[in-house]
């Protein structure tokens, strides 16, 4: 169990929080910011046949959400590697230890 209390695990968690906060900030800007709060301002700009605010509210924000999740996946996998906390590679089987032993450990 020591592994999850190590100072390394603490820095891993800190970096994780920093990444997630940044991505959630983006998430907020593209949806609540551009799609709701400033939608009328952005509607002043044309984006192909759309008013830009309208497009962000009905299409653009969704594309951004997808991109945000994929950035997260990519960065987290790197972070796991950097701190050596990733799961054992190439094992495609349910981690039975996790399903059944949790209770007995406590």
């Amino acid at each position, binding site marked *: 169990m020591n592994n999850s209390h190590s100072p390394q695990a603490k820095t*891993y968690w800190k970096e994780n929080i920093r990444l997630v906060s940044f991505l959630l900030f983006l*998430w907020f800007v593209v*949806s609540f910011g551009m799609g*709701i709060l400033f939608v009328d301002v952005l509607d002043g700009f044309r984006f192909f*046949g759309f008013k830009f605010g309208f497009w962000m509210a009905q299409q653009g924000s969704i594309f951004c959400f997808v991109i945000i999740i994929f950035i997260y996946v990519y960065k987290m996998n790197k972070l796991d590697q950097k701190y050596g906390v990733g799961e054992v590679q190439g094992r495609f089987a349910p981690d039975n230890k996790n399903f059944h032993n*949790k209770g007995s450990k406590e």
Partner: protein
Amino acid sequence: MAIQTLTFIFVGVTFVLYIGIAIWARAGTTNDFYIAGGGVPPIANGMATAADWMSAASFISMAGIISFIGRDGAVYLMGWTGGYVLLALLLAPYLRKFGKYTVPDFIGDRYYSDFARLVAVVSVLFVSFTYVAGQMRGVGIVFSRFLEVEITTGVLIGMAIVFFYAVLGGMKGITYTQVAQYCVLIFAFLVPAVFISILMTGNPIPQLGFGSTLADNSNIYLLDKLDQLSMELGFTAYTVGNKSTIDMFFITAALMVGTAGLPHVIVRFFTVPKVRDARISAGYALVFIAILYTTAPALASFARVNLINTVNNAVYKETPSWFKNWENTNLIAWVDKNQDGKIQYSSGKAFSGKPQFLEVRGLEGERKISNLSTSNKNELYIDRDIMVLANPEIANLPNWVIALVAAGGLAAALSTAAGLLLVISTSISHDLLKKIFLKDITDKQELFFARVSAGFAIVIAGYFGIHPPGFVAQVVAFAFGLAASSFFPVIFMGIFSKSMNREGAISGMIIGLSFTASYIIYFKFMNPSANSIENWWFGISPEGIGTLGMLFNFIVAILVSRVTTAPPEKIKDMVDDIRIPRSGDAS
């Protein structure tokens, strides 16, 4: 071939497919039944999650609603997709690491309290039953319109199919049928959208056609044309919003947070082998969902233009057959106020309330209604739910496309119903019986109870489908409000705050739940006439109040946890363990 024959063939083939998959993927253990043995590949889990999530409401109703409310429809588009960002970044990987079967499992273990578990179970049951009633209704509507059987027969057939693969296959059967159902439903949604996009704008990609010029060489953008048509008929422009900014904000937030907190979605992330699979499968899920969710607003605008062009000032006797077919299913009504035999369509309600049809026909052959006409010029009532189903007919698409849409609507409704039924049965057999009341039962017995409760849940869901409580539409706000104000905050704090304790979580959940529930009950059930912006707190509608409930949950939980005893060390260890992907004892 006739539409009905084609529909029978399409629906029949897809049903045989679902049953075949169920037999192939039978569940042998509770592990199989609850989480498909934890061995679902991430891309399959992404598809299954998408089908699980996209319900009859997403497939049948959403584009129709957007079609009628224009830009404000963004609350659904952003709300029901943005929640996946929260799910992927804040919940899914950690819950997968935790590795147990259900949301109440996590809440009960993390907050070392069976009372917290019980509160969670009750909320899960409430949210899931609310949802499943709507799905069964969707099955009934599709059957009655396209196969011309009684709604009751349709619901019974749907129940039998779901019973077969949910009870037999559990999560394993459901997962692989959902993968098939996703393929059916997305194909069925895209084909008519592509056709209509080509017809109207010449561009085969609906997302691009949405922003293109019309195909009639007028060089006018589709959306500009739509704004112009809307204003001519007395509506506000399509691309302009009507809701207040604060209400838009709160509704979107409630739907996002509610999405992230819905138990039948969360549980899907327990089925993948590893933490990194949980992360990526949330990404896949959102891609698969986004394909439909970015097509829907395009389809909504095409449908709106088509509808206005087809019905406004059309002579009733010469209207195409779809118009009369839907009139016969009570979803369209027309009153010839100025007696000119033509349909005048404009803003405002044609009459008060839902149409009450009489057994007699009017001068033009239309079905007479007993409602009191209003004084405005509008003569037409259209139920928003028909837009997606009627769209291929409105656009004169070939019969097989119409039949395909029927099969897609059924796939959407059945896949969501199955996911919900599984959550209900798991809550009963695992959370209530195994964890609280009958702690000594064996795995075999637990599996038996899981199957019995799945069967039982299907019967209740079917009953609601045949005798829908009048409040189904209203309770959707409830489901999201409750998920947002109860589950999301406690799960989030359970992972991100080591000092959050039992007392804080329980009081937060109870305050969040009771505040949200009483606000919704007051405006939706006790005093519906007061349900308008002047009476709402800060102008927040009941649909958006879950956001405020969530904030109260956070505040109360944090305050209470400050003044009560900290959680035991082993709980803190557990949180540490959840936070990193590799197992604690370095396997």
